[in-house]
């Protein structure tokens, strides 16, 4: 039976290689999606919070230690990330629930820094306040 298993595993490689050749452009250009993360999971281990909401919303309340992209500006936010990021640190961007700013900022941040561990907070600020962050 082991021989049969090996044959099946190897036979599947051939059409897979053919489809890579046929779709090379699409596969090569494909970028990893920005993944959502829950507040609880984000809070486990090192995390750098980036607040993508307007500055006045940030002043009313934010996740402890969060950096406001609106207040700092993009270049200074990048500088803060460069200073505070360490291997294993997650960078979590949030905005109001249902807003696209966090995702846009996360994509831009990943492009500008090359860092992979960039996430968007699921449920946004509302989810963070629900977990006790203010």
């Amino acid at each position, binding site marked *: *039976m*082991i*021989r*049969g*298993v090996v*044959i*099946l*595993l190897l*036979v*599947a*490689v051939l*059409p*897979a290689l053919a*489809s*890579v050749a046929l*779709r090379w452009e*699409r*596969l090569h250009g*494909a*970028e*990893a*999606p920005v*993944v*959502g993360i*829950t507040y*609880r*999971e984000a809070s486990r281990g090192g995390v750098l919070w980036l607040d993508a909401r307007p500055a006045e919303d940030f002043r009313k309340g934010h996740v402890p230690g969060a950096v406001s992209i609106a207040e700092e500006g993009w270049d200074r936010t990048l500088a803060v990330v460069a200073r505070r990021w360490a291997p294993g640190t997650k960078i979590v961007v949030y905005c109001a629930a249902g807003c696209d700013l966090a995702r846009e900022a996360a994509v831009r941040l990943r492009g500008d820094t090359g860092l*992979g561990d960039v996430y968007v907070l*699921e449920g946004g600020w509302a989810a963070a306040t629900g977990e006790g962050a203010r």
Partner: protein
Amino acid sequence: MKARRWFDGGALVALGAVFGVAGALKLADPVAFADAIYRYRLLPWGASLALAVYLPWLELICAVALGIARLRRPAVAVLAGLCTVFLVALILARIRGLSLSCGCLGGESSGSDLGTAIVRDAVLLALAAVYLTSRGRRKANQGR
């Protein structure tokens, strides 16, 4: 004996149908499937892409091989292995509280929620395991 044969036939049809359809649907858009794999946060993007290209073909070829007597048991064994891997990934996602759909049919938004997918995978794994053990026992008895 007859009931056993019915069970084996039913198990093969179920495995073939589920993996045949799933493999064919995933083939249509490997990037969307890679996206779904990546959201489990178990593999880097490159590995997710490689798996997204390879796995649908493996599923499809195994589904076809279920119809070939000589390759039937190996195909069931491979599908049982896949079920085990999927089950572990689904349970880990559930434990970690990830909110995603299973991606069983390709894209992130495709397929069922994690709970349903866990039950379905467990049933498929059980079918495959019972098929393999009953066949193994029958072969061993014939050998005596």
